[in-house]
């Protein structure tokens, strides 16, 4: 039980469903403004299905359908993928579309944490579940799925969530400025340059952040963990010599034991 003060206003899953719906509406109107119609309807249907049901792949399906709709729209407009889409570097409609998509995906993930599970299933923790096939009913042990309790939802959490979401769209726009900038050296095609820029940014960012976090963790290590770390380093560096020595010792010990048993 958590002893945090309970909020005066009751918040439930419906609030995340509303946020999902709002995201979907933003996507729908932005695409409508863009000129996407049929694909837009499909995106809307998939999005609604994800809101009202607990299908775990709903956000992924929506992303794929959304990408399909955009591809189709591009093909319909230019009849070729060699032509780059003509758009300004800062486009409000695209920003709204990105915001809607992020809102939908993030809110749907939170919804799934409340309705299906928040942690990966632990096979060691099992619960009894009733199964049914035709007339036959039986109970079997399945890996327990732990979902987040609805009573833990607070209005502050929703407010923080809503405030953070535009940051994703703005960060994407900033990333686009970096990636979409034309290169001075034009060895490859512009798109290849963009891909290289993105990969470089992601890999270097992940490496540097990972190193900083790892260093932070090492600085806060307790004595035992630090001892294991140092011991592991020593073992890695002198593994071969240690292995030889201790194999010989283990053999000698067994040999002596066998001799004792014989005597």
């Amino acid at each position, binding site marked *: 039980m958590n002893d945090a003060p309970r909020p005066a206003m009751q918040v439930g899953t419906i609030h995340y469903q509303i946020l999902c719906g709002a995201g979907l509406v933003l996507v729908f109107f932005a695409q409508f403004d863009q000129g996407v119609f049929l694909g837009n309807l499909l995106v809307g249907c998939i999005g609604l299905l994800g809101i009202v049901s607990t299908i775990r792949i709903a956000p*992924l399906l929506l992303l794929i359908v959304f990408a399909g709709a955009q591809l189709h729209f591009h093909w319909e407009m230019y009849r070729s993928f060699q032509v780059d889409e003509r758009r300004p570097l800062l486009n409000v409609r695209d920003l709204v579309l990105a915001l809607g998509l992020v809102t939908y995906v993030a809110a749907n993930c939170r919804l799934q944490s409340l309705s299906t599970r928040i942690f990966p299933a632990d096979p060691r923790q099992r619960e009894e579940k009733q199964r049914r096939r035709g007339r036959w009913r039986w109970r079997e042990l399945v890996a327990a799925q732990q979902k987040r309790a609805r009573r833990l939802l607070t209005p502050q959490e929703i407010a923080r969530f809503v405030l953070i979401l535009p*940051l994703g769209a703005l960060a*994407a726009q900033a*990333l686009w400025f970096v990636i979409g900038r034309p290169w001075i050296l034009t060895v490859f095609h512009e798109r290849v340059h963009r891909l290289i820029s993105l990969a470089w940014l992601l890999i270097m*960012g992940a490496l540097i952040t990972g190193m900083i976090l790892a260093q932070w963790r090492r600085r806060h290590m307790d004595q*035992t963990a630090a001892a294991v770390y140092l011991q592991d380093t020593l073992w890695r560096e002198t593994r071969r010599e*240690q292995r030889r020595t201790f194999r010989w010792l283990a053999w000698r010990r067994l040999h002596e034991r066998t001799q004792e048993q014989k005597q």
Partner: protein
Amino acid sequence: MLTSRGWWLLLVNLALLVVAISLGLGTLTLALLAILAWFLGAWLQFHVRLRWTASAICVERSLLRQGMPIEVLWAQSTATVVARLCSRSRLALPYLAVFDRVPALARWQKGDTWSEGELHRAAAVEISYQINCPAAGRLRFDGLKVQVADLQGLFTAHLFTRDVRHYRVLPPRIDEPGHLPTIKRHNLLPHLGTHRHLRPGSGSELLDLRDYLPGDPPKMIAWKASARRDRLITKEFESEVPVRCTLFVDVSSSVRVGPPGANALTRVIAIASAVVHANAEQRDLSGLCLVDEHAVRGVIRPGRGKRHVYRVIQELADAAELAPVTEFAPLERLVPLAYGLAQDVYPELLEKDVNAFPWWLPLWSPQPIYTVPRTEQVPKSWPWRMWFYCRRWMRESPIGLHRGRLFRFAPGQHRMYRLRKRVAAILAVRYHLGPAALAWLLEDDVACSQYVQRFLAEHQVAAPLPLYDERGRYRFGSPAKIERLGKALLGSVLRGKENELFVLLVDLLEAGPHLEPLLRAVRVARARHHQVQVICPWPPGVPVPGQAAAPPLAGRDLLQASLARASAQRLQQAYRRVQEAFAQLGVGVALAPEEQAVSLILNRLHKLRGWQRSIR
């Protein structure tokens, strides 16, 4: 760590992003970049919160009984465990689940052993549940397992907040059916002709009336009787010499086999505790001697008083938590158990950057066969013996084939090597074995087995130990234990003053021909007019002599039932042999599971009280 939901979202998003950039779709690229940025932001936020808070969380635990905190509890009583996870950090963890491990000795009764919520400075996460302790021993709480996740369920991490607490569980105060009343006996003189030959002394019970002799204290004159008989009569009172009872309790591995709280040692401790309490009520003296296969673990000279009783009970409670240890147990069974325990209790020591395992190591250099303890017997007939030695040579020679070379590609072997390396790294640091101990435990099966057993025993995890070796000999029937017990008994006999009762709560069923040192000591005790009573612990679940065995079941269980029956018969025969050996010395043998075991000891004590007051 990314969850499956996180992995799928990242992979699908990256794949679509690559497609979008490759095909020059600006709108799609921007939308997917937004999702990527949000994802990376959530990842960074999760890790920063986790690292910031991990070192600032602590556990507050208390054990309550009727609302009051306690440090010690009695067996067969219930208590409420309250554990709070608190944080001193400014940052909050938005969602975590906290799990408490119920100690092996305790039985969960009601309440949840886990809880969930948000953790920050003003809000702790609390767990409260009720447990029952069926047997004596020690409750060990290691701390709380914490599973952290972000609110989207994209990232998760395991922590363990260590807060090792021990609570002693004292043996129960059992009122056995044969428990003697503690109220004062009637002051009755025996009838004429049926004299009790009691010794005169300074007690309070009237023994006899006799003629006054010069020198008798005047306060002893029975004035009414003197007036009636017209001569001076003196009262004589019974001698009140306390009876000493020394309990020799076997705490060797043979009685520790089984899950904590459900092994033979539990019953032995319960009997010893009941005798000590009953003896204390009679204001007699009780002593204790704990013996195992290695040494006499503890000796408490006979004494009385509340403090002495409490000391004896504490010693018994500490002995009750001991776990069985054998020289070698197969690592295939022990290592996965130890690894599972380490995953729960020491997750930070299994991190990849702290405790790494090169995946190619078992392929490159698997454990050679010549360092694995052999479990096979040399055949008796010479052709088979030749073949046996030839095969061994082939396996151990540098050019020969052996298990390691053939099975280095087996996934099971690879997994075992990985688990063993990681567990060995933890054991080497935990037991301060030195910097090279990791390689030592990785190569020496016997040493690794012993330390893994110790690790499991300390955390009260029952390990599956083989009871018999490859030659069919019982692993725990140590002759050294019998010899040490004999010496301890002789020591007590030498120190004994009056007629004493020595109660041997010892497993002698597997002693076989090694019983002689103990019989010799018992002979000396009997020759010096001491009383000896043997109580034999009996494995739980095995029918005692005279009790019908469970009917065998058909099918697959038939073999198990037949084996169980043969094992029970062998134990019953061993019991009869022990009975015969002690019967020749006039010493009774009873089984610990029998209900009258405590009554038997108390009756012997009662008789001894009568005999002590008799004229020798």
